[in-house]
């Protein structure tokens, strides 16, 4: 229960005493965690409702009912604890980055939220346990309102695994805004003066989404455009701070954000949102109710494909997709566990099948890789367990059943003659038929005679 007396006979000093400093440290930690919760929860793609409680239980900070997603709290605390406190020099900012990810594993950074602290402006009249705490509450409310007012919010409400999903990343360091494209906008959400410095929350968000030519089809479905040069070196899509060849992380367009170019970005430990139990792109995120839900990345066709080396989105990248289709909420846990085990089986299956292909002459039964004409083990593999046969799917009976279920493509569908060839072929066939008209007539007459008899 957060109770205190109105009459405070101990006036604040011009510098923080130990007690106040400890209180400020504690408030700061929770302020950062709650900010991260607000930002990330607003990008889950669903409406939020929390109850007003006339009597608080003592667990709610800043008099606001914000339910915590445990994973976000853990990751935020880890990110904060990896570096010095925000209020201690060198005042390393805390950032939350929101990005969009398509089924083709393309990502686009949409916005960067930054909480910074500087000692340029102070106000010794601010009391930690009353003024600053209440100011933090006000700024968090502003953050709640403003997270609904950027374009990313509407995008996040329309996300789905087959179109795009919204991901997040937390790091300590200068905010990266160079991959927000041209004409990104910056807004200040609020600031809090303390006796030793000032907190400021800013957001920089993308305003233009233009597409690269090879993704036109997806862009039509997405309703998004990604710039042609978006993924070139000038706008590198890295998911954690890296150092360019020239030692800088790219130029910043604006000096108003606390984004001074240092030449090297602090190596914040990338936050892994999920446990990677599988080498595809399954991820585990927590819903707003605190129960883990699993993103159906595995529903993406490419999640089952081979890993493409050289893309900026290899498995080693700690991208943290967290949101998911609302329709998958209720059945995610059990379904995805089954799905993961099936994926493991499929991989073993594929390996064995590859061996069989080499050994057998009729090797067109199983086509792995990116062949779009047949998709034998396309999505979910259900292991064949034939009656009276071995449970092992390498058994002849099982193989036979599978071959019947997935017959090879007919040659006429594989080799498609051109229109000219088809016409020529038809002409030739007509000539042959015309030359044998008498034979056809004789055949028909024998049939008639047989019927009469």
């Amino acid at each position: 229960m957060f109770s205190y007396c109105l009459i405070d006979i101990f006036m604040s000093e011009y510098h923080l005493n130990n007690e106040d400093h400890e209180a400020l440290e504690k408030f700061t930690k929770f302020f950062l965690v709650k900010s991260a919760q607000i930002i990330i929860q607003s990008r889950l793609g669903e409406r939020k409702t929390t109850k007003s409680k006339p009597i608080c239980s003592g667990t709610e900070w800043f008099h606001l009912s914000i339910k915590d997603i445990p994973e976000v709290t853990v990751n935020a605390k880890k990110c904060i604890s990896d570096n010095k406190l925000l209020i201690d020099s060198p005042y390393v900012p805390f950032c939350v980055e929101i990005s969009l990810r398509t089924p083709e594993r393309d990502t686009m950074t949409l916005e960067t939220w930054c909480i910074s602290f500087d000692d340029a402006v102070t106000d010794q009249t601010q009391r930690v346990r009353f003024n600053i705490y209440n100011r933090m509450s006000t700024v968090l409310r502003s953050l709640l309102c403003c997270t609904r007012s950027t374009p990313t919010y509407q995008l996040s409400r329309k996300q789905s695994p087959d179109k795009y999903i919204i991901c997040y990343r937390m790091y300590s360091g200068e905010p990266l805004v160079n991959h927000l494209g041209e004409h990104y906008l910056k807004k200040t959400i609020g600031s809090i003066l303390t006796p030793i410095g000032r907190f400021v929350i800013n957001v920089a968000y993308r305003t233009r989404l233009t597409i690269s030519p090879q993704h036109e089809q997806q862009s039509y479905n997405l309703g998004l455009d990604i710039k042609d040069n978006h993924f070139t070196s000038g706008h590198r899509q890295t998911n954690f701070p890296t150092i360019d060849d020239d030692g800088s992380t790219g130029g910043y367009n604006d000096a108003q954000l606390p984004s001074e170019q240092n030449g090297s970005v602090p190596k914040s430990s990338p936050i892994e949102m999920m446990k990677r139990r599988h080498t595809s792109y399954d991820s585990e995120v927590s819903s707003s109710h605190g129960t883990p839900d699993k993103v159906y990345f595995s529903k993406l066709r490419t999640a089952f494909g081979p890993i493409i080396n050289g893309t900026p989105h290899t498995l080693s990248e700690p991208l943290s997709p967290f949101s998911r289709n609302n329709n998958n909420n209720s059945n995610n846990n059990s379904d995805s566990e089954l799905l993961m085990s099936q994926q493991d089986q499929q991989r073993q299956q594929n390996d064995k099948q590859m061996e069989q292909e080499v050994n057998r002459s009729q090797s067109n039964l199983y086509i792995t890789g990116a062949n779009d004409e047949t998709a034998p083990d396309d999505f979910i593999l259900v292991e064949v367990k034939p009656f009276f046969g071995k449970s092992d799917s390498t058994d002849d009976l099982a193989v036979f059943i599978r071959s019947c279920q997935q017959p090879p493509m007919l040659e006429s569908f594989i080799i498609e003659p051109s229109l000219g060839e088809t016409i020529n072929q038809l002409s030739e066939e007509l000539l042959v038929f015309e030359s044998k008209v008498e034979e056809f007539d004789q055949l028909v007459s024998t049939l008639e005679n047989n019927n009469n008899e």
Partner: protein
Amino acid sequence: AVEGRQIDEVVSCMFHTILFHRCVGKYHTKGEDSYSVGTLGYTDVDCDFIDCTYLHVTSQELQRAVAEKISQFHDALRSSDTARSGQITLEFYQKKKQRWVFSPESVPWEIWTVKIELMQLSNENERQFIREKLTDSLSERIFQITEIINRPDYVPKPSHLSELDLVFDTTFVDIQPYLFTISFSLDGPQNLSVGLAMRRLIKDAFGTSL
């Protein structure tokens, strides 16, 4: 400038954003000088006629009180034959005790005014265009509101627990907003009295227009 059907959502979006900042948790006094503060919840609301989502304090009482006033403004504006525009005001005030038997005086300390101009659109293209513009404009207004609220301006504080109702509206069960009132007026020919004119002058001097 908005269409008639968008009035409620536009005004609700702005007023609820303001009220969310000008509201505290319910106070529970424990003894003479100590108290505990309740917790504020929030609820997202999707607009139907603009591509916008705003949030309000989770309180049915507050929602009802605000919706009622906005609805009255909506009806008055749309049913008026002469007025095509009007303004609706959200005013925060505090009560100051008077001497003797006089009732406490209400002194406004923050006034937010939203001016609405009705427009009639002829086709769907125009409607879509206006809808997009309005969405962008509303988002800008939200940022503007948060910027104004985060300024170090005057916010009244009760000097003692017994004087909470001079600053806060303590009639709500689950929350405690600052004392506020919503009023509106339609543009057009009106009979102005001296008193009304002076009141407007003072309000304009202190008020914040959106």
